């Protein structure tokens, strides 16, 4: 493997507390090393440029059954964004849900090198992995939807957390996944008969437990299994005015299992769970309350799910939410896709508009949260691609974070009512590049427990992104447009020590790795005949045919962890 020396760049590496230092980064065999000999190494002179670790996205729907169904129903979306084949790269289409290859290329162009695919129905895991294999240039991992899995519900209802943990470990291994995803706990099971749950203490029909039990139970299981990431939680009542109370209830519920060391839960796309007001007419922001809670507590992390005002496609495992969205009217296409014994799903194409009061307030909520949460290690930047906006709009979000001027420019064009309600004019905070590196790579890598990612210390994966921003001479807040452009067009992206993007052009297309956890429990879950019979009853696939085999993962990276049960 070639050696690379990146010379004279301004390095931002928050995990190693390096803030805008002029230093060299040496790469050998796909890892960051202390030094390489200048005569052997390929030297890249990046004087006057910004050097960061490769971006780590904590929540972006890039592959799987749901995502693909979204692609399938939107030919209208593809026709306006086509990508030609080149000698090196494959063709494809966009816009809101780019095809697999295009997804890899576009992430890489922004300097992102690791992406989490956060919503994978266990039964459809093979499909998700087949798609992930086709996404080049980035490392990826998936989170399995386990919050409404019958086996888990039954064991939590019984209070048998140990058995539940063993089953979850089996499931994580069998689906080659990385974390536990919980979506609208209890709600998806209720949706099986067209109903939903509306608070943490509603009973889940037929299972004798409440969403609160599921969340706390799964958090316990997560701790027992020593998972690198926390539970990844999509709250109940998502997308309902007044739901910030449910969100705070959820976070309070998790206080009871917090052990005081590392966070116990991660609430994803919290923007959609921070609504105040009693109904859509009185819709307003609950960002301040949420931010105050998060500033006072340390047991949670969140990502935002920022709105970027795009014609996009919303998709979530939260089937009842998508149905409620469909019921609001004005939507031509509605997809619901239930998955037996496990989960559900829904898709609706949605255009977030500046001139729509609710959409504009949602946009404001996302930014209010980002700016009011004091500690950038507690929150991370996402658009919940493609729900809030496609991932290649990230540079726009960056601009709103580091430039008040950019925020004002957008707010000026927003709905008048929304402008009045927005807290943004009262917030002066502007993110520095150092803080931006936290919310886009360092913090996410830390929250995900990825030790070799998100930083440029010795031994880290050689994933580096280099942007055309000179932090010494540029006033990023005032020249936000050029900086925004720089973030969208990396000068270099280096993936595992190989230059894959140069001057915003793809120059190599290695396959990324798929990370998965081999959770080793002290005693494996009891897969006896009784269990197999249950499998046969619950699913329409045979037990032997259920697990994802090695065949489905092109470049696997198995991470073994020892559980405490």
């Amino acid at each position, binding site marked *: 493997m070639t050696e690379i020396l990146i010379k004279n760049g301004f390095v931002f590496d928050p995990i190693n507390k390096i803030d805008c230092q002029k230093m060299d980064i040496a790469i050998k065999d796909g890892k960051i090393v202390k030094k390489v000999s200048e005569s052997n190494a390929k030297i890249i002179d990046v004087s006057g440029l910004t050097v960061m670790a490769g971006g780590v996205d904590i929540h972006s729907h890039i*592959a799987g*059954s749901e995502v*693909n*169904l979204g*692609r*399938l*129903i*939107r*030919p209208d*979306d*593809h*026709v306006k964004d*086509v*990508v*030609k*084949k080149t000698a090196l790269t*494959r*063709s*494809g*289409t966009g816009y809101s849900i780019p*095809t*697999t290859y295009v997804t890899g290329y576009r992430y890489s162009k922004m300097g992102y090198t690791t992406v989490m695919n956060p919503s994978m129905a266990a*039964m*459809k895991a*093979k*499909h998700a992995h*087949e*798609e992930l294999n*086709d996404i080049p240039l980035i490392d990826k991992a998936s989170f399995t939807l386990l919050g409404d899995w*019958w086996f888990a519900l039954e064991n939590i209802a019984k209070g048998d957390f140990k058995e539940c943990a063993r089953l979850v470990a089996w499931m994580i291994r069998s689906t080659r996944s990385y974390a536990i995803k919980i979506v609208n706990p209890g709600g998806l099971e209720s*949706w*099986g*008969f*067209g109903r939903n749950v509306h608070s943490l203490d509603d009973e889940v029909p*037929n299972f004798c437990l409440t969403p609160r039990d599921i969340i706390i139970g799964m958090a316990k299981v997560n701790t027992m299994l020593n998972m690198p990431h926390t539970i990844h939680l999509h709250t109940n009542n998502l997308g309902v005015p007044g739901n910030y109370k449910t969100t705070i209830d959820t976070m309070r519920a998790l206080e009871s299992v917090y052990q005081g060391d590392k966070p116990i839960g991660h609430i994803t796309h919290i923007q959609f769970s921070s609504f105040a007001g009693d109904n859509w007419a009185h819709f307003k922001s609950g960002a301040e309350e949420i931010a105050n809670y998060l500033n006072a507590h340390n047991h949670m992390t969140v990502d935002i799910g920022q709105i970027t005002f795009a014609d996009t496609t919303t998709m979530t495992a939260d089937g009842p939410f998508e*149905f409620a969205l*469909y019921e609001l009217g004005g939507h*031509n*296409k*509605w*997809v*619901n*896709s*239930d*998955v*037996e*014994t496990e989960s*559900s799903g829904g898709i609706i194409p949605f255009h977030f508009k500046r001139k729509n009061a609710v959409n504009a307030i949602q946009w404001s909520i996302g930014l209010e949260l980002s700016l009011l949460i004091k500690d950038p290690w507690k929150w991370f930047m996402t658009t919940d691609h493609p729900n809030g906006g496609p991932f290649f709009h990230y540079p726009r979000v960056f601009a709103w974070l580091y430039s008040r001027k950019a925020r004002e420019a957008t707010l000026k064009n927003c709905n008048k009512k929304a402008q009045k309600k927005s807290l943004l004019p009262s917030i002066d905070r502007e993110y520095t590049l150092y803080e931006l590196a936290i919310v886009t790579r360092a913090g996410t890598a830390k929250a995900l427990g990825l030790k070799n990612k998100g930083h440029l210390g010795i031994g880290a994966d050689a994933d580096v992104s280099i942007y055309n921003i000179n932090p010494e001479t540029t006033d990023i807040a005032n020249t936000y447009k050029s900086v925004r452009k720089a973030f969208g067009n990396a000068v270099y992206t280096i993936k595992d020590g190989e230059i894959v993007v140069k001057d915003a052009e793809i120059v190599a297309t290695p396959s990324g790795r798929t990370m998965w956890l081999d959770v080793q429990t002290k005693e494996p879950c009891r897969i006896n005949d009784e269990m197999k019979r249950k499998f046969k*009853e*619950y*699913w*329409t*696939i*045979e*037990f*032997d*045919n259920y697990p994802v*085999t090695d*065949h*489905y993962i092109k470049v696997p990276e198995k991470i073994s962890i020892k559980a405490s049960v």
Partner: protein
Amino acid sequence: MTKVIGSVVCTICGCLCDDLEVTVENNEIIKMKNGCAVCEAKMVHGYKSEERILKPHIRKNGKLVPVTIDEAIHEAAQILTDAKYPLLFGWTSSASETQHVGVELAEELGSALDNCCSVCHGPSVMATQEIGIPTATLGQIRHRADLIIYWACNPWSSHPRHVERYTAFTEGRFEKSEFKEYVQKLKAKASQKKVAAAIRRTQVRYQSPSRPKSALVEAPPQTLAKEGRKMVVFDVMKTMTAEVADYFVQVEPNRDYEIFGALRCLVNDQELDVDTVGGVPVDYLKEIADVMVNAEFGAIFFGLGLTQSIGRFRNVELAIALTRDLNRKTKFVVSPMRGHFNVTGANTVFAWQTGYPFALDFSQGYPQYNPGEFTAIDLLRRGDNDATLVISADPGAHFPKGALQNMLKYPLITINPDWNAISRLGDVVFPTQWCGIEQAGTAYRMDSVAITLKKVVEAPKGVPSDEEIVRRILEEVRVIKAKKTATDAADGNVSQEMVGSKKRRSKSIEKEMY
């Protein structure tokens, strides 16, 4: 040596039953448990057919002669690169790994790419693109559905285990199987027949010739009011499935659209001013609408009767719209009865690489989609393409004459395991393994759940998998193209592509067929 292999997946229809138990002796399947008759016909007997292609063939002087695989690959690649606009068609009886390479080949060639979806459930996919679809995996229906509607399909014959594995006759967590009741019904019917026969024998002289009763003149049966799972069939004729159902509604051909419309009105509490719709009395429809609204969980399965009759994708659109309306009152899902075992896979694989499920074109360097323009039959009938590759499909037996005539004007490459109609007409004929019997891979069930196909027996010696063939053709195409670019650059000539005329084939084969 005999061995028994469990959890084998059937490769016939979109049900992809994966509980087969196969007994293999001396590299031959001799016995099978759990499979339906159709499955047994293929997996125990059919695949051993004497019509099996064992060697690659190339047509020389009008006759197919056996050649080496390298020769056939080169010839195929040459044909495809020489052609201005080839069409790659089929794919639905191949594993998704093969389909995956197929997209890459089409992209490399700048060709048209279509799968059998365009002649079966293409309209269903188009309807989904129009208004989405509320659907569920089959297990969800097994556990929860207390109302199952089969519309314009006959699973008893086409998807024989659908009813038994996924709907009315399976035991779910919340719904019980109706199989016992069905058996009772059969017994009752048999004794009724005996009684009727006895009466007939005694009164034979006075018997007026009886005519079979139409379902339309029968009063709505009591069975709709019964507890537990109900199965309703809408079709133009009384099929085997209808015999099993609790209620059968006979629809006039091509009138499904109106009936969906009427049901939508009734479900939304509107009155109808007519007595019959599509040949069905409104009173009956009212009763069905009530049953639909009162169901805890309903499921509609529809078949080619909707997609291939007048109205086509608009029929499906209304079926979906009816399901959407019903979701306001209760829970309802709708799902197409996909035919070939991996037609859903073809849609899926094409969609994640290109954004589109079928009817694709790469002539501009990027994927384009337009059913009616790039769908195989339309494209062939216009005579747009000048070479065809057919894989795991038999348009020779199923395509209209005009389309086939145009196809046969130009070189034809086929990749199929046996000598079916299209293989016999090919210019380059590849042998291949039976997917799911001799070759492992992935297939997508009708509810787009991926299932791994097993390799049960070894393929005959020298017969490659279709994935290998397509991959090798792709590699050869790249080699030929690279050479061509090199020679063109050296000569400074205009590319052959620009001046060359379409390469026609000899008329003899056309005559052979017609």
